[in-house]
């Protein structure tokens, strides 16, 4: 509960299957219905069934983008949840802000009372079993208790409950209302409020959506006009497919579950060649398998969007864990030199808009575009302003909303399709009338595509080097011209489009104490760290690029020139983005600050490191949280 407004973190933890995750979802939706913002970070058990699950919901007046350092309130569905969070509860003492523990007292009693922790025992299981005669209502009883304890607007929760159970019938809704009231009643009759946390009054709800990360990618892709999706299941990318499949059918497209990832990308490229906007989504191992086709997409100039929902690597690694370690393979995997672009998302809201942008770049430049996100964002949900998709009178589709990286709207791009009518002068035809699919001398490097069915644009594609009309040929002249053509497209991209992905930049000083460059989920944590550093009196500049490749060096160089030191926090071992920046800009003195423990940073870790860097006058190098705290720390 910061001084600037309402800001509360509630964590719900317990056995998977007991409605822990649902409880978090209810809190999130309640916040939305009460006119507040929320992010909800979910953590599913590694086991298929059972195992420990938790949901961390941060509700606030102003929009926030991380789930903070820790929780204010823990609602523990069992003893395990308390134990798992003991390390955080213990911190209440030093953090001079109280923490609240609401726990199922049916079978569990804390061993000791921790300093600055307020305890509220509620016999959740007992009430569910004995009073409600339905164990399944345990989480709703808990919501009732939380509502009573912290003043979470009753009507908003009840509405959320109703919305969820409506289609199961009035009876079920009533039962859940009853469970909710039971929780409230128990608290009223048995507990005395001792903590300072209190929900403000509900406000007029805003026009918002609630989406999970992978859902936002699905919806964004639909908005971009995708028509073909080739899937092969892999954690944590599978659910992009789950979310898109029915929408796609409704829009006349199709999701094809392929036999493997090589096949997925092959199919997606086939559909692209056939004229459709096309995509696939996978995680690290799938990107590895797709490498050969990625190289072909770059070489043959086929538009394609490849979503990489990253997980912990290398190899099978840690499928359910957060990491940002696929940047190297996305930027440099696949053999030989070819053009590509990489966009990376920092929030669920980003996932929606950048999905549209990824298709735009792919279709405009006829290159493979990676949309990089990660497993933590995949299952996190966010309340954000509802996006609007409009069709302009000229037929163009425009996506509007609160586009987080600072542009006003996104016009959906359709690829440049050859039109013989318009090419009366035969600019794209050879002397013998053949279609010049790969004409080399266009100023942008871009040439129109021919789509099957059009008798005027017939051509072959081949992964071999080729002439302008696509016959295999390896003479030095032809080769060099074709390479230059392909890479000229990236120069065009840097000129015409890069800036729009570089707008999320804040310069507080021309000689700031510290500057932060960050990407992916880490950026949304760094943003909060920067704010806190500012509150501590430091001057801080921030830059969260959404385009990671290609790199427009001068933008980074200028940004860096305005600070005494530049920290690049990211969650991988090599400091992959910093590595790329060192290689592509004239910046040498970047400080890599990396965590590779399978969990995101918390804002505090970045704050503490920044302070250390300022105090010890660190200007470059490679650091981990262990360098700050002397030991490996977990964050979740």
């Amino acid at each position, binding site marked *: 509960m910061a001084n600037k407004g309402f800001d509360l973190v509630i964590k719900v933890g317990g056995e998977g299957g007991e409605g822990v995750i649902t409880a978090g979802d209810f809190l999130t939706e309640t916040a939305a219905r009460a006119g507040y913002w929320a992010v909800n970070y979910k953590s599913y058990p590694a086991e298929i069934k059972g195992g420990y699950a938790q949901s961390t919901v941060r509700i606030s007046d102003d929009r926030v983008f991380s789930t903070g350092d820790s929780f204010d309130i823990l609602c523990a569905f069992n003893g395990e949840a308390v134990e798992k969070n003991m390390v955080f509860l213990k911190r209440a003492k030093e953090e001079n802000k109280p923490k609240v523990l609401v726990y199922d007292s049916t079978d569990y009693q804390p061993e000791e009372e921790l300093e600055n922790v307020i305890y509220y025992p509620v016999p959740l299981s007992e009430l569910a079993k004995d009073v409600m005669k339905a164990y399944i209502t345990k989480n709703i009883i808990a919501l009732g208790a939380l509502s009573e304890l912290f003043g979470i607007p009753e009507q908003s929760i009840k509405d959320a409950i109703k919305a969820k159970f409506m289609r199961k019938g009035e009876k079920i809704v009533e039962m859940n209302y009853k469970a909710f009231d039971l929780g409230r009643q128990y608290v009223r009759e048995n507990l005395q409020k001792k903590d300072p946390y209190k929900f403000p009054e509900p406000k007029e709800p805003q026009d*918002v*959506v609630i989406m999970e990360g992978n859902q936002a990618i699905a919806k964004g892709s639909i908005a971009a006009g995708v028509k073909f999706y080739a899937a092969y299941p892999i954690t944590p990318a599978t659910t992009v497919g789950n979310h898109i499949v029915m*929408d796609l059918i*409704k829009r006349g497209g199709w999701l094809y579950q*392929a036999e*493997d990832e090589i*096949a997925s990308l*092959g199919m997606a*490229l086939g559909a692209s060649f056939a004229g459709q906007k096309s995509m696939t989504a996978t995680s690290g191992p799938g990107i590895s398998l797709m490498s050969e086709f990625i190289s072909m997409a770059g070489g043959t100039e086929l538009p394609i969007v490849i979503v990489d929902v990253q997980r912990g690597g290398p190899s099978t690694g840690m499928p359910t864990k957060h990491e940002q370690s696929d940047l190297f393979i996305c930027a440099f995997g696949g053999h030989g030199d070819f053009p590509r672009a990489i966009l990376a998302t920092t929030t669920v809201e980003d996932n929606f808009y950048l999905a549209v942008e990824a298709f735009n770049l792919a279709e405009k430049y006829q290159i493979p575009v990676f949309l990089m996100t990660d497993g933590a964002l995949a299952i996190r949900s966010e309340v954000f302003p509802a996006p609007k998709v409009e069709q302009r009178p000229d037929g163009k589709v425009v996506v509007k909303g609160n586009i987080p990286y600072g542009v006003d709207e996104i016009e959906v791009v359709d690829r440049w399709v050859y039109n013989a009518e318009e090419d009366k002068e035969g600019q794209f035809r050879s002397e013998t009338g053949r279609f010049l699919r790969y004409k080399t001398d266009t100023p942008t490097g871009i040439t129109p595509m021919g789509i099957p069915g059009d008798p005027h644009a*017939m051509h072959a594609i081949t992964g071999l080097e080729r002439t302008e009309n696509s016959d295999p040929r390896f003479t030095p002249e032809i080769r060099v011209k074709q390479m230059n053509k392909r890479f000229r497209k990236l120069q065009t991209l840097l000129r015409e489009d890069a800036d729009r992905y570089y707008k999320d930049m804040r310069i507080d000083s021309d000689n700031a104490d510290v500057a932060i460059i960050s990407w992916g989920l880490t950026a949304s944590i760094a943003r909060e760290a920067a704010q806190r550093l500012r509150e501590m009196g430091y001057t801080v500049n921030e830059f969260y690029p959404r385009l990671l490749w290609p790199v427009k060096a001068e933008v980074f160089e200028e940004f860096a020139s305005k600070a005494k030191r530049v920290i690049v926090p990211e969650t991988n071992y090599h400091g992959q983005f910093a590595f790329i920046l060192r290689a592509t800009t004239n910046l040498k003195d970047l400080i890599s600050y990396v965590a590779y423990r399978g969990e995101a940073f918390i804002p505090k870790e970045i704050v503490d490191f920044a302070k250390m860097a300022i105090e010890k006058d660190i200007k470059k190098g490679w650091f981990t949280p262990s360098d700050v705290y002397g030991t490996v720390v977990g964050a979740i």
Partner: protein
Amino acid sequence: MAVLTAKDYRSEVEPTWCPGCGDFGVLNATARALAELQKDPAKVVGVSGIGCSSRLPLFLKGYNAHTLHGRAITFAIGVKVSRPDLDVIVFTGDGDMFSIGSGHNPHVARRNIDLTIIMMDNKVYGLTKNQVSPTSREGQYGSLTPYGTIDHPVNPIQYMLTFGATYVAQTYAGNLKHMTKIIKEAIEHKGLSFVNVISPCPTFNKLDSYKFYKDHLVDINEELGHTDLTDYKKAMDIAMHWADYYHDPNAKAHIGVYYKVEKPTYHDMVEQVKAKVGHEESIQKLIDVCKPKAI
């Protein structure tokens, strides 16, 4: 449109095949078959992998894709599923389809995707200069098996029958007429059709030569009386004798149609699903389902 002749289906690119290569015949037969069907070249898509054989689509007019080794089928599926209005023909080799590509065969067949697969079976890796392929006979020499391969060959016909192809035939690059007829039928067939063309590689495969096949072929339809093409077991039975001639000098290699049935294609099934699910005009509506539900 004026009547098109075989020549109208050929691109300006000249084949780089060795003199005498069987693949010339396949190219000719394909062009003829397309001409007989008067297909619109702009609506025929040839897709291939990598190999001497896989060069074929580059020599055809129309929309063609020379993709990656072993992956023609995957790319072709993408084309066909997203654009069912196109005729999609896969041109492949024994190595391309049955070695590196073997993982895709079961799945395209069991889904009965409406593609035509034409495999040029020279029983060797030609383009990489003489290694044994999965269809090479035991004992055949290759650069990586100079002692004579110890591997038992695959049986493409039996495989594709097992996987569920609905049209399965074998023909011979030395018999233009038969080839043209079979390729034409295969293109016309609704569903997954597989044509294995025995296509000699005079440069590297000295065993499976024109000379050898000259007196080693028998037409299973005309000569062996295999006429009930819907009889799966019979087709399997004949297929099991596919490579007898490798061991028995008197046994014959088969040409002809093994199997041909009509079954719903993948696209037929997709249409059913689409009809059931229905259409949504408005993208906005699909986004708005993520708003808190009005209650």
